[in-house]
């Protein structure tokens, strides 16, 4: 696929059929950018430069355009993250229901600040904005899953369940 002879180091999708399927769903190539980025991140953990180059090739545009898109979205990571990503909602309804103490708890327990990863790569902590689940505040998303109505105790137990 790469014409620059660097294909050995380049990123390739392990599931080319899924890539084809994604392209078949859209009337134009560029619309496949975001789904391809999601797919790449689930395979690779983050969006590296070689991921960007590969996707730019596939959707027929300059890598800078794909990079521009990547940098806009908070769910796309340009650096490796911990094995588990803890995202604590900090917006109003969660904040009114104790979200701050959940953040403090992680900070104390694992000695990391928001945006940081533990030395053993177990957890990355993030403060995020409204997760669309304010009725069950405070809400924490860990990896893909929502955990709702958390007390500090429940949260602590939950954290222990992640290796």
């Amino acid at each position, binding site marked *: 696929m790469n014409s620059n002879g660097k294909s050995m180091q380049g990123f390739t999708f392990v599931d080319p059929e899924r890539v084809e399927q994604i392209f078949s*769903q*859209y*009337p*134009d190539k*560029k*619309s*496949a*950018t*975001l*789904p391809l*980025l*999601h797919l790449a991140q689930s395979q690779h953990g983050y969006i590296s430069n070689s991921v960007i180059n590969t996707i730019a090739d596939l*959707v027929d545009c300059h890598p800078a*355009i794909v990079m*521009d*898109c990547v*940098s*806009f*979205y*908070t*769910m*796309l990571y340009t650096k490796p993250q911990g094995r588990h990503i803890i995202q604590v909602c*900090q*917006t*109003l*309804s969660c*904040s*009114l*229901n104790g979200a701050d103490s959940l953040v403090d708890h992680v900070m104390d327990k694992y000695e990391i600040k928001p945006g940081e990863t533990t030395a053993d790569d177990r957890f990355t902590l993030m403060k*995020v*904005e*409204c*997760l*669309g*689940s*304010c*009725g*069950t*505040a405070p809400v924490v*998303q860990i990896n*893909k*899953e*929502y955990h709702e109505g958390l007390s500090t105790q429940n949260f602590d137990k939950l954290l222990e369940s992640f290796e």
Partner: protein
Amino acid sequence: MNTFKPVLTEHIGQPDCHTLSFYKSVGGYTALEKILKMKPEDVTQEVKDSNLRGRGGAGFSTGVKWGFIPKDSNKPKYLINNADESEPGTFKDRLLMNKAPHQMLEGMIIAAYAIGCHTSFIYIRGEFYKEYKILEKTIAEAYENNILGQNILGSNYNLDIVIHRGAGAYICGEETGLIESLEGKRGWPRIKPPFPAIEGYLQSPTIVNNVETLSCIPHIINRGSSWFKSIGPEKGPGPRLFCISGCINKPGVYEEPMGISLKELIYEKAGGIPDDKQLKAVFPGGSSSAILTAEEALDVKMDFEDLVEKKSMLGSAGVIVMDETVDMVQACLNIARFYAHESCGQCTPCREGTVWLVKMLTRLVNGGGKPNDIDMLFEITDNIGGLIDFSKGSYGKTICPFGEAVAWPVRSLVEKFKAEFLEYLPEEKAVA
């Protein structure tokens, strides 16, 4: 109004309510069968007659919007279901996708048929992974049963539906930001006009509708537009999903007729405020609506008109309740920080102004406030989003309504709770 029976959430809570077999057992897809024998323009007319107004935030007439699709254009038409649900205080679309996904899907197919669309998208916020998986199953079931795909239910109508996941950006809920995002770009809203109905996705006519709006459609078709219009105020009728969160005993989604009083919603439906604390303030329509004081909140009806009269808005019907213990300056900082983080950065007043608000409010909270800070806060909000006075025509300082969405809550908070802001000023300076 005591006779109101839930419409959109009637079956939610029953086992397997998300499945096709359940949905069919309660009359699902009969509206689709009906409209496939109708002329598309008659479907649009029925929706227009129902006076259904959009549930996503702006409250525009759904039937009128569908009618904007140019009849003579030979470009493809697109329908996008806005499932980005990211307005703080709003969590109703998530419930509908979890528990009644086929109701939403049937609404989409009817809408697509009415506007002549053959490829439709569900733009779902990236964080809603569970809901995405449910929708994948919903759509697969629909294809297996000839509800999607070629020659739907024996008609000669074809439709494909694609789920498109967002990736964490509030502004992609704004319809033109959403379209840009779908096209594989950063979600920068477009200047309107042209409106999406004329030039939307890939420059083609596009209708963007909210999950809840689309979920109303099968019921309008089955029970008729006059039935729909008879629920609540005629100019903006229908059932409405109110999301209640914050300082409240029973937070959650409540389906009630449009026009229910906010007092009843808070004290009767949602069980009032924990520990019998006093009500202090309410955001009636998500964090982008102007805040109401307790007095205003207890005297307002939850419909489009009454809230505009109170210089706020119904928006996404996300009701955020604050009790007497809430520090309004902290609340203001929380909201400002949200908008500073979510500004797409395209317009200078919005990009710079939101950051300034956060800086000033942080300084104020930390005891470094200056006497003219209050005036500065007004000046910045007016610069981003104009005055709250609708009659003066406040629109137009920024490319998209996000400007108003930050200016209204912040300005109204400072205006209505000014004393609390003044209290934060260091003593010697507050004397003046």
